[in-house]
């Protein structure tokens, strides 16, 4: 068996107004992990712990086989980190940054950097302050990708980007995992991007991991079931139902434990199943957050 790229268990971190509670994450080589949560849920704190930038209070954090934060110097050679607040030298050119990174990292791939310049429609002569937001994100990503790190930690890489820039970035990320030794963690509240390219999805809310599974399982198990309930019929209680909304004789049941054939449980109680609808990751995410908040006030 290959060693996981990320393996963290029982991680706690307390701040005055926020607490990360018992966080566990695992990522295998060749996979993309979509890390999804509302603003302030703990995505950035978790990613910074993975980078060794924040010391956790309790738990174990292993990244690329290194214990963090103590062995971060070794791990960071092979991690590419991109976040919203990355500071580039605003009066320097992109080319200056490329030469600077190349001088630090032995693995810098100059010809791949040139390919990325063309694909992202960037120019080495441009100064950072002359770039748009989207171009700046692409420039930051270029500086990281051309090092060909084994692990990419991307904090909200597509937030605030136009559709074309988002498309270019997603295409580049998919290109990275053509190599099955490499892996990506990709935090976002844009569930559409996550649904498209992630293999594994982890939901975080209020400092706690509320659900984590491979994407296909999420999309298979969550369903909205539309029912016609005749007067006198009673909805059978089913495990996995996260929400039931009824008005008159119509009921909509949201379940996280759908299996083909579940319909017969309702028809046997005299209830008509009108439709069984799959849910988008966004719908699953919202239903998941709301049902968890309901259980843990």
């Amino acid at each position, binding site marked *: 068996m290959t060693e996981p790229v990320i393996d963290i268990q029982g991680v706690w971190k307390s701040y005055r107004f926020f607490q990360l509670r018992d966080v566990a994450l695992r990522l295998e080589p060749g*996979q993309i992990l979509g890390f999804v949560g509302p603003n302030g849920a703990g995505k950035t704190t978790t990613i910074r712990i993975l980078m060794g930038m924040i010391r956790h209070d309790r738990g174990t954090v292993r990244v690329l086989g290194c214990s963090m934060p103590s062995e971060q110097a070794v791990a960071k050679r092979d991690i590419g980190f991109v976040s919203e607040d990355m500071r580039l030298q605003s009066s320097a050119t992109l080319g200056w940054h490329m030469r600077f990174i190349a001088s630090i990292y032995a693995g810098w791939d100059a010809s791949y950097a040139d390919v990325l310049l063309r694909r992202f429609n960037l120019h080495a002569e441009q100064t950072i302050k002359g770039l748009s937001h989207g171009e700046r994100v692409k420039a930051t990503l270029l500086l990281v990708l051309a090092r060909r790190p084994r692990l990419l930690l991307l904090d909200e890489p597509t937030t605030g980007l136009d559709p074309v820039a988002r498309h270019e970035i997603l*295409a580049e990320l*998919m290109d990275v995992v*053509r190599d099955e030794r490499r892996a990506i963690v990709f935090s976002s509240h844009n569930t559409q991007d996550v649904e498209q390219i*992630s293999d594994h999805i982890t939901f975080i809310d209020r400092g706690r991991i509320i659900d984590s599974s491979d994407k*296909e399982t999420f999309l*298979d198990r969550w369903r909205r079931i539309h029912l016609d309930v005749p007067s006198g019929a009673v909805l059978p209680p089913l495990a996995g139902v996260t929400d039931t909304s009824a008005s008159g004789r119509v009921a909509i049941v949201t379940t996280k434990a759908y299996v083909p054939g579940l319909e017969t449980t309702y028809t046997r109680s005299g209830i008509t199943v009108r439709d069984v609808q799959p849910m988008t990751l966004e719908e699953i995410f919202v239903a998941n957050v709301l049902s968890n908040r309901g259980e843990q006030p």
Partner: protein
Amino acid sequence: MNSGELLISQVDRRPMYLQIMEQIRHRIAISDWEPGRELPSIRALAASVQVSVITVKRAYLELEREGVIVTRHGIGSFVADRADLSVQLRRGELDEHLSAAADIGRQLGMTPNELTSRLQSAIARGNANDAKDEKDQ
């Protein structure tokens, strides 16, 4: 493989793995992809259509279960080497349409006989149209 060969729709409510399966089946059904042809690797197809590796992997697994493709581990995946595959797949497409029609018929409370006679009138209409087309030429 070019990225233009398969296209996944965000508007289509069907799961992405089903869309991939259907497009591959269709390519084979119309003999665009011949028996024995090598399919793109899972990671190459995932990169070209820009969907998760796990989604493409699932589509390949299910196509393998259906006998449409064969995967030789460490070598690659291939269109199954069966001469009748394309005909089988087209019959499969027909069966899906017929099942959908049967479902609607049931919802409308039709008897099997009523539904069958509707199918026969549809066949008759099709034959009449063909005859008309020939006359027009």
